[in-house]
Every structure is written in structure tokens, then in C-alpha cells.
């Protein structure tokens, strides 16, 4: 272990960078910060997960507030799916706390990380409207037809929501991954909404962000009362991510990342492999 001061300064720098990278590349901070805490700072993986969850709430809430103001989030759909994601998150957090072998968490985290890399490299074709005229009875009952203002050209675009029931089921899985591994899970929710539920990309991203905070809050309580949440580490992460996200959002408006995205994806996948190896070689790196 390092002296506490060194650990905290290193974590603050990492959190700022994770905030910048996360908002720039469209992935959350947790997927970067948990490997950093466990591999480089030798923090217990459950403490790292619990602590990361608070950072996830900070990131999501900051982004969500802007999306809500800009009327991009589908508030009703978000609330409907949150019924499933919160229950999934509670179950996931319980499994993380009760699982007897910590190495299981390292292996699962590595696998999810490699999957998230794939999402980052191929985010899918951005869509602006749902071409499918979908009217399921459940979608009508839940009044899921909505519209958003596309800020690229200022037009209002109406869209329908397909297969809300299927989305609900996958929502529970997304929530469980979030609660189990301390990540936001946007890399599951966004494809779920765009591919399965046929929602245009911009409102899908906004709605996902909007849901992540509530989902993470559900598991945060369990980690808090379980004694896994380190308030000092969490505090440093909140401050760092808060600062980093504000920088990253400005960068995103200016540039389109191409090579950076690819290089970053390779790095992420490599770290994912390291996380899996860590389960078999306890002394790896630190």
C-alpha cells in the first residue's frame, strides 16, 4: 500500500482523466476507475465497486440535468425501465457483497470491459428517427410515443418506442451488471434502446444517462450500509469526475475522435485482460 496522500492525489488525477475521457468517448468513469483502483492502488475490488458507484451517480446526474433541460430524455420511458433496473441493481449489489470469491468479480469485470470496448469501437449507426411504425398495446398504454428537438438542425422529430416489454427485461440485466460491477451500464442500455426499442440515438443516450443515476442509487445504499463505501475515496472521485466531465463535454463539442477512440479501445481491452489475469495471479502489477 502507498501512503494515503499519494493514493488520494493519484486517484484525483485519474478521476479527472476518467471524467474527460468518459464524456469525450461516451463511456462512464467506472469502467476506467475500478481497474485503476484495484490494479494500481491495490484497493479491495468491492470497495472500488462501491466507491465507483458514487462517481457514477455524479457523472450521470450532471449529464442528465442538462439533457432534461434540453428535453432530450424520455422521462416516461426512463421511469418505466427504472422499475426493472433498480431491482436488478439491488440484486447485483447483493451478489457482489455475498459472493465468496473476489476473483469472480475480477473475471466478470474483465469480460464486461472487453465487451464495452466493442461498443466503443462500433457504436452503431446514429439514427434520427424510428422508421418502424410500431404500436404495441403496452407502448400505447404507457404513452411512449414521444418527440425530441434535434439541436443539429433545430427540427422536432417524433418517434415511437418498440418492444417495451423486451426492453424491461433487458433493463433488469443492465441494472444487475451496474449493481454487481459498479459501472453505469450505458454500453448495455444505449444499444438496448436503439436496436431493440428503435429509439433515435440522441434521446437513447440522454434517457440512458437519466436512468443510470437512479439505478446506481439503488445499489449505493446496499454498499453504504454494508460498510464497503470508502467516503474519502468516493469524495475524491466525485470532485475529480465533476471537474473532468466539464472539460470533456467542451472537448466533445469541438472535435471528432477517430484514432484516439481506437487507441483508447485497445488500451481498454488490454486492461480488461489484465483484470481477468489478476484473478489468477494475485500479485499482478501491485
Amino acid at each position, binding site marked *: 500500500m502507498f501512503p494515503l496522500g499519494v493514493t488520494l492525489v493519484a486517484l484525483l488525477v485519474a478521476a479527472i482523466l476518467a471524467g474527460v475521457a468518459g464524456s469525450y468517448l461516451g463511456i462512464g468513469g467506472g469502467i476506467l476507475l475500478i481497474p485503476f483502483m484495484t490494479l494500481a492502488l491495490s484497493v479491495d475490488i468491492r470497495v472500488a465497486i462501491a466507491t465507483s458507484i458514487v462517481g457514477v451517480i455524479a457523472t450521470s446526474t450532471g449529464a442528465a440535468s442538462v439533457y432534461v433541460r434540453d428535453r432530450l430524455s424520455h422521462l416516461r420511458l426512463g421511469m418505466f425501465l427504472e422499475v426493472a433496473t433498480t431491482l436488478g441493481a439491488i440484486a447485483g449489489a447483493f451478489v457482489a457483497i455475498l459472493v465468496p470469491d473476489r476473483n469472480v468479480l475480477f473475471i466478470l469485470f474483465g469480460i464486461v470491459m472487453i465487451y464495452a470496448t466493442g461498443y466503443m469501437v462500433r457504436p452503431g449507426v446514429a439514427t434520427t428517427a424510428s422508421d418502424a411504425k410500431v404500436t404495441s398495446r403496452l407502448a400505447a398504454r404507457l404513452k411512449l410515443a414521444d418527440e425530441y428537438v434535434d439541436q443539429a438542425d433545430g427540427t422536432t422529430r417524433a418517434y415511437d418506442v418498440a418492444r417495451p416489454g423486451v426492453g424491461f427485461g433487458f433493463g433488469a440485466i443492465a441494472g444487475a451488471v451496474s449493481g454487481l460491477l459498479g459501472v453505469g451500464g450505458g454500453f448495455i442500455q444505449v444499444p438496448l434502446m436503439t436496436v431493440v426499442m428503435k429509439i433515435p440515438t440522441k434521446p437513447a443516450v440522454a434517457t440512458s444517462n437519466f436512468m443510470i443515476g437512479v439505478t446506481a442509487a439503488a445499489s449505493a445504499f446496499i454498499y453504504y450500509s454494508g460498510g464497503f463505501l470508502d467516503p*474519502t475515496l468516493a469524495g475524491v472521485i466525485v470532485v475529480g469526475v465533476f471537474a473532468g466531465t466539464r472539460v470533456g463535454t467542451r472537448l466533445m463539442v469541438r472535435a471528432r475522435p477517430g484514432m484516439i477512440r481506437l487507441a483508447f479501445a485497445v488500451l481498454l481491452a488490454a486492461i480488461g485482460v489484465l483484470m481477468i489475469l489478476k484473478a489468477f495471479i494475485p500479485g499482478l502489477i501491485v
Partner: protein
Amino acid sequence: MLIYRVLWGGILLSVVLIFIGLLLGSLSPGQLPQTPLKPAELATALVSLSPAGFLALGVIAMILTPVARVFLSILVYLEERDRVYVLITVIVLANLLFGIVLGFA
């Protein structure tokens, strides 16, 4: 707009509390907490101006911000007389409270 203000207010409150906690902690070394405070310990920690109290309160404020948003949404749907969404939102809030109760049980 109300939801926007609640979300931003929650983050700012949390960041300020955490910042005070970390500042106090760096002034008096050895007092930074590594485990979360129990709710019963919170009041004494705050009165004695310990870093642990501010950090715990900041972290709790952050976690409760989305919960407050859900609670407010219930009021909004009640005002709109949207019974289906009042019900859905109440279930989400119940899940969150279920998490709190389950955690401390």
C-alpha cells in the same frame, strides 16, 4: 425545469460538502475515514466538524439526489393526474427505499 434544478442543486451541495471534508482532512492528517459512518454517528461527527462528517454527508447527498428526483416526479405526475405513471414512479421509489431497508437489515 424543477427536475433540472434539483439535480444541479444536489450535485453542487454534495461537491461543496465533500470539498470541505477533504480540506479539513488534509489540514488534520489521520482523520480521513475509510468506512462509511453509520447514520447514528453522523450528528456527532458534524457537530465536532470532523472531516468524516462532511464527507459522509456529501456522499449521502449525492446518493439521495436521484431519489429526490424520483420523489418529485411523483408530485409532477399527480398534478398531471397521470395515474399509470404515479403508480410506476411510486414503485421505483419503493424499490429505492427497499434497497435502503434491505441494506441496513
